[in-house]
């Protein structure tokens, strides 16, 4: 963890996997915050991606920052942390993400680590590469309340170039709560 980590770092993390593994015809799946680096990465490697799946994920527009989507309380905490020079902030609990089983909650809580602050304050630069991908799918996890994802789902429903699905029996971590359902959808849409 370092104060130097920003959105560009995470975008490059993704872009470089495509380059070093020489990937083509990829189905890119992004979850939650992953919508930020995912959108940014597509600006550079969009030609290597044949389908995208936005899994209960942010769908940012040009110039937006993660910080802009936080609640007022979160913003105050966030700014205080940045002022103190803290590189990251603790993860929300698995319960807050509405992970279904108690056993999985304990496991998820044991694995999550602080999120770097720098990634949320750098505005994203987008020119529309995400929308140019041939096959686009948005999946909303029904049991997790999040207005930003409700809005993204509504936008995708209104746009014929996106397919939409709702994971009715899943919290935010769909890969944890409903892995087989998710695999079936991924194979269907990629």
């Amino acid at each position, binding site marked *: 963890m370092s104060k130097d980590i920003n959105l560009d*770092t*995470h975008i*490059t*993390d*993704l872009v*470089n*996997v*495509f*380059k*070093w*593994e*020489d*990937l083509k*015809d*990829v*189905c*890119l*799946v*992004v*979850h*939650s*915050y*992953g919508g930020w*680096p*995912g959108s940014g*990465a597509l600006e550079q490697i969009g030609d290597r991606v*044949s389908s995208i799946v936005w899994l209960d994920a942010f769908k940012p527009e040009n110039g937006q920052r993660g910080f802009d989507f936080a609640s007022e309380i979160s913003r105050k905490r966030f700014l205080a942390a940045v002022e103190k020079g803290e590189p*990251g902030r603790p*993860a*929300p609990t698995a319960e807050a*993400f509405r992970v279904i089983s108690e056993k999985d909650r304990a496991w998820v809580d044991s*694995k*999550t*680590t*602080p*999120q*770097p602050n720098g*990634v949320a304050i750098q505005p994203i630069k987008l020119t529309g590469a995400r929308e140019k991908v041939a096959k686009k799918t948005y999946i909303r996890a029904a049991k997790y309340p999040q207005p930003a994802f409700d809005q993204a789902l509504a936008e995708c429903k209104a746009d014929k170039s996106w397919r939409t699905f709702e994971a009715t029996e899943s919290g*935010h*971590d769909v*890969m944890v709560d409903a892995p087989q359902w998710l*695999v079936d959808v*991924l*194979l269907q849409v*990629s």
Partner: protein
Amino acid sequence: MTNGQTRRTALGAMAAGAGMAGVGLMAMTDQTTAQAQTGGKTFVLVHGAWHGGWCWRRVSDLLEKQGHKVFAPTMTGLGERSHLIGGKIDLATHVTDIVNVIKWEGLNDIVLVGHSYGGVVISGVAEQMREAIGSIVFLDAFLPANGDSLAVKASQPVREAIAGLVEKGETAMKPVPAAVFRVNEKDRAWVDAMCTPHPVATFTDKATVTGARDRIAKKAYIRAKGYPSACRSTASTTGSRPTAHGASTSCPAATTPWSTCPTGSRRFCSRWRSDQNAPTHKDRYRHTLWVPGLAEFTRGPRAARTRGLARTRDCATPSPKSPSPSRSSPSARTADRCSARTRRR
């Protein structure tokens, strides 16, 4: 579901607003089912200096096709993580890179494989995660004693280059050309294009080796005989199939090269013996005479025996059944045994 779909690669960027937990490559195959059916193993493949997880691609594909689970993480500052290079990356960083994969993925009974410089890293990993390691494989790798570093143990040109960089205060060392590692000509351009500068501190830091590595149940050393290395064994090449140092890329069909235990390796063994922590050499490492594939080897000694694969012997203690030295040279004897096994197979 068509074949085309099952072969497609899915790239998942996972983060639950709680940290970029990592980028996972999910091949859309029935791997889980395959693994359950075959009792597949879990491999953690650790690359060498200037390389990245990319160099294992052919080996990973072959292992996964056989139902095994493969992790080939790229260490900090290299390959697709080369944008993270900086002065703060040291040997502890790289050891932690691998330790954390084992911890976060909840892995146990793993086959831990280290290539080249990766031998220093997996020796450090063994210190922290011995309980999670079922077998350890050194693939043309450094096998450090306590306090060793590449700055001291690498070949002379590399040692001199490291010393020069330290003197200038440089923190990264440019890749050594693939031709020097005797990578096959066809792959050299690709390997050179993928290799990236390596953090110098990982070469100058001293390895901590207290004996955890030696207590791992299954241990193997694989020597790539097409790569001469004065600091490591200078095995005879008589009768052996040459495979270069970049073994993970050079020999995809066989997965790994074969390795013999002739004179040069004995010299290597005597160096291990000098480790005061070791009870006796015999209790420690044996050299793999011939390993057609890591997967075959790790099916266990019984399976290996019945298949005539992965025979091992203590390289410093001649087998009672070995022909006497007067009959043929040590390397020729080894070659004879290898070919005999090939036929039996």
